[in-house]
């Protein structure tokens, strides 16, 4: 064993063995934890959908669009939009009703400055989106129906443009 230690190839073997062991341990652990993470995510999405569509019974996910079912009749479509706000990424859950008008919008996660940008989560801002068609989703300073939060134009602009861009893409692919 001793002379094996100072052969030239010993360092490579040690490094490979260590990486091998670490990879196996991690993959094994991942198979244990990934179902838990999956369930967690699903649950979180579900209660987001719950408070948008009160009467929904179930939802199916098909290429990133959630088809909302009420006794196996689709009453709406929902999807997640991501925007780049002042403090970082903002994820928004957007719910449309049957004739592609916005039923409601709720901010899932953001890192905007507390007290300023964080006011995008308040009802006063998200209610403006209700009942809007795709064309008039814009700040009222550029022809839309939504009035920006004073002192947080960057955050409000980020939310509005994220919803509009994502909606354009999703409307095309809704069957």
């Amino acid at each position, binding site marked *: 064993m001793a002379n094996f230690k100072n052969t030239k190839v010993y360092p490579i073997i040690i490094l490979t063995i260590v*990486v091998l062991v*670490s*990879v196996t341990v*991690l*993959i094994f652990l*991942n198979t244990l934890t990934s179902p838990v993470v999956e369930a967690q995510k699903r649950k979180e999405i579900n209660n987001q959908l719950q408070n948008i569509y009160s009467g929904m019974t179930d939802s199916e996910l098909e290429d990133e669009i959630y088809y909302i079912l009420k006794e196996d009749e689709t009453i709406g479509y929902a999807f997640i939009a991501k925007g780049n706000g*002042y403090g970082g990424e903002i994820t928004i859950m957007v719910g449309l009703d049957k004739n592609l008008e916005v039923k409601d919008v709720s901010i899932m996660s953001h890192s905007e400055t507390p007290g300023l940008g964080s006011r995008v989560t308040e009802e006063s801002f998200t209610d403006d989106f209700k009942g809007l068609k795709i064309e008039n989703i814009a700040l009222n300073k550029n022809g839309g129906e939504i009035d920006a939060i004073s002192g947080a134009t*960057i955050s409000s602009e980020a939310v509005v443009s994220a919803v509009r861009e994502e909606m354009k893409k999703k409307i095309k692919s809704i069957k």
Partner: protein
Amino acid sequence: MNNLISIFILMAIVNNIVLAKFLGLCPFFGVSKKLSNALSMGLAVTLVMLIASISTTVIYNYLLVPFQVEFMRIVLYILVIASLVQMVELAIKRTNVALYNSLGIYLPLITTNCAVLGVALINSTENYTILQSTVSALGGGVGFSLVLIIMSGIREKLELSEAPESMEGLPIAFITAAMLALAFLGFRGMI
């Protein structure tokens, strides 16, 4: 194309990896005493960051994503960075001793430099293509060197100033960094 430029400016100035994202602070405070050190450290970090970002993006896009083992990215990224730094250190040590003397002590520092791994992780969370991640690594390196040079310029003046006894050295450096971060906060929201 403007996407590339905006990525560069985003990484170099707007979300400066040192002042806004707090990456790479250990060498930032350790090395910024003299301007010459700062220059060579900035260069070394940018070089390693470029090569590391390209190789980690290749691994991420062509290995981790197809196999859905994204959680393995930490281990593989840091393995690549550590081996890279080890190779660069050996190469410089064997070929050119003078450069090794002036740069040598910073190379092992780069392995534990949060900025290099930070940029690699940012590239994969934003899932950039290889071109985008090269530009972002360049932006990160330039941003790191820029702030390091500014800071070392200020700290050389600080040495002569009469800071109160307990403030000398690290505390005054932190407070200067606070001012610098405040100044860089002005860039926020530019893009």
